[in-house]
């Protein structure tokens, strides 16, 4: 079997551990090397890899050395948000396909640089929006395509989580912002994917309300799409420390012929103990991250773009930046 040889660049975003796990589990992927400037993260990742596949992989402190390996076809980038652009451009120039963690970048000009670099190099750029690969999302998409709820009229979703992030998530220089930057994009992308409509206007309220930090942690966003479709998104770091699960990804879609709703975190067995937290939900859902890596690898090997492209990532960045502007100016922002 032909395999996609992958390098994992940076574990600053914790999703990389999940992508690495998926890369080891998937038969069409071979994890070749990992890179991280942080020695502790690199060691932790190497230990995980050894536990999963019984052997270590090449490690680098400088991701540019990993990019020089001819045995690497593609990289998965999970650095701080501000580094996405530089790393993606470097990877593309080294001839590597790229799957980049969201948000793609902190400005549209950076996103354009990333897309142009990938186009010039003839490599694919994928955006890590794993929610599309949750089996629930995929079932809902099929239902909508089959006309089960008729034409989509309105949408509402929440992506509220316990704040688990590393310290850089709260550093606007590295993250670009708080919960708006972190969590608008998943629900937004599902709305676009389900409805086939593009966003045209954004209104947001946001504030630093849960704890003292330099970025916002509570927000509400209403997005108007083409054809007067409305979608509301709650992207928050507001779940209590001992919530039943890490967060939610819930969506409700109203159509002319019905309504469909789901929460990707709600396939669970409840666990109750004598200790604190006394109740938690143990998920038995299949990994959406594995679905994401599977699609990326399968698509690249087949010589076609992944399901979620750089263009999809660009829309997410555009809406997120508009949400910041709206929250600052207290008015709806029309997307250019």
């Amino acid at each position, binding site marked *: 079997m032909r395999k996609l040889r992958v390098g994992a660049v940076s574990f600053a975003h914790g999703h990389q551990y999940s992508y690495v796990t998926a890369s080891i589990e998937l038969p069409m992927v071979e994890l070749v090397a990992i890179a991280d400037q942080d020695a502790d993260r690199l060691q932790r990742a190497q230990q995980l890899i050894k536990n999963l596949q019984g052997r270590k992989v090449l490690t680098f402190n400088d991701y540019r050395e990993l990019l020089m390996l001819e045995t690497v076809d593609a990289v998965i980038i999970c650095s701080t948000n501000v580094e996405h652009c530089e790393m993606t451009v470097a990877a593309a120039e080294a001839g590597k396909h790229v799957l980049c963690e969201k948000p793609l970048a902190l400005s549209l000009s950076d996103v354009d640089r990333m897309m142009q670099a990938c186009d010039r190099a003839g490599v694919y750029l994928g955006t890590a929006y794993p929610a599309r690969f949750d089996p629930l999302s995929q079932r809902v998409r099929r239902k909508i395509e089959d006309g089960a709820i008729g034409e989509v*009229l*309105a949408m*509402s979703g*929440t992506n509220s989580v316990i704040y688990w992030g590393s310290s850089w998530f709260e550093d606007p220089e590295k993250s670009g912002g708080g919960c708006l930057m972190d969590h608008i994009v998943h629900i937004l992308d599902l709305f676009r994917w389900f409805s086939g409509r593009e966003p045209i206007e954004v*209104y*947001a*309220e*946001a*504030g630093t*309300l*849960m*704890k003292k930090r330099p970025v916002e942690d*509570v*927000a*509400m966003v*209403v997005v*108007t799409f083409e054809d*007067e479709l*409305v979608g*509301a998104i*709650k992207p*928050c770091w*507001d*779940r*209590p420390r001992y*919530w039943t699960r890490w967060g939610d990804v819930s969506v*409700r879609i*109203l159509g002319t*012929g*019905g*309504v469909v*709703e789901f929460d990707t975190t709600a396939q669970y067995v409840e666990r109750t103990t004598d200790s604190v937290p006394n109740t938690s939900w143990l998920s038995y859902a299949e990994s959406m991250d594995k679905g994401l890596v599977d699609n990326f690898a399968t698509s690249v090997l087949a010589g076609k773009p992944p399901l979620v492209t750089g263009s999809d990532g660009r829309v997410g960045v555009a809406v997120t930046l508009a949400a910041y502007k709206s929250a600052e100016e*207290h*008015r*709806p922002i029309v997307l250019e």
Partner: protein
Amino acid sequence: MLRAVVAGAGEWRQRVEIYGNVLGHENVYLLIDSISKRREALSSEVRMTEDAFAVENSIIDTWGTVTENLSIVREALRHGVGVVCHGPFAESMEEARDMLQGAGSRLLVAHEIRYSPKYELVKDQLDTGELGTLTNVRLVWLTSAEPDLGRTWMMKQCFEAADALCWLGGDAKRVMAKGQALKGRSLDNLFGIVRYDNDSIGYVEVGTCYPVGYCFEQMEVVCRRGMLSYDSDTRPLKFSSSKGELTREEVYRWTPLERMLGEYVAFFQEGRPIRVKSEDTLRALELLDALMRSAMVRRVVEL
């Protein structure tokens, strides 16, 4: 003996029944002008009147469109009769303010959520302060409405939601709302974001355009040290019919509507205190008015 005249189509059967239980069925009249289409369906035990003000020693209970409510309230106040109004009743905030101030205690506006045990519980929890500072409130009320009750039901739902947002969150400083008319020409789906004076954020989603039989209610109140949440999917009485319909209910000995009307009757009969003040009504109406205006002009409305 106090009598009650029930006007308007909203929950009219329940209101007739509740007033009948409290005042005696012989003391309840149905105003047939506004609900004449339903008169055949009524049992012969219910008295009817074509003139709400011909019944002596009565209060009038109206739950209709804004225009119907306004007409009844205005006439009731002119006749010096006590009136209970479910939902908004004025064309403008100035008019609502004038009527509430002029009427004094003769005009009671229904704030049903304040008689709902789960909202009372949440409010009590918030008031203890144990959960810390409020950061956000999210209310979602989605249902289907009968075609002829759509607008009435929508306005009533939006009023109650506005009241809940005020009651739980405090005073608002600005709102932005998006409205949709999905099943007809009048508003039947509303998304609203509220920014409170205390900087916390509120969100309300009210829809009466959902498929027949659909009903969903969600409440989340998040504070710095914890959160309170309710979801109608957890309602304890679950019923599946042979037609494949599924309903979930919460069950009360006295429904919020019964508790509220019982308190209002006790006020009119015995002068007992009412938990809701006219300032509460005005605040809810102001927020409702701002949400509606924002949805209409598609801009932020400052309060």
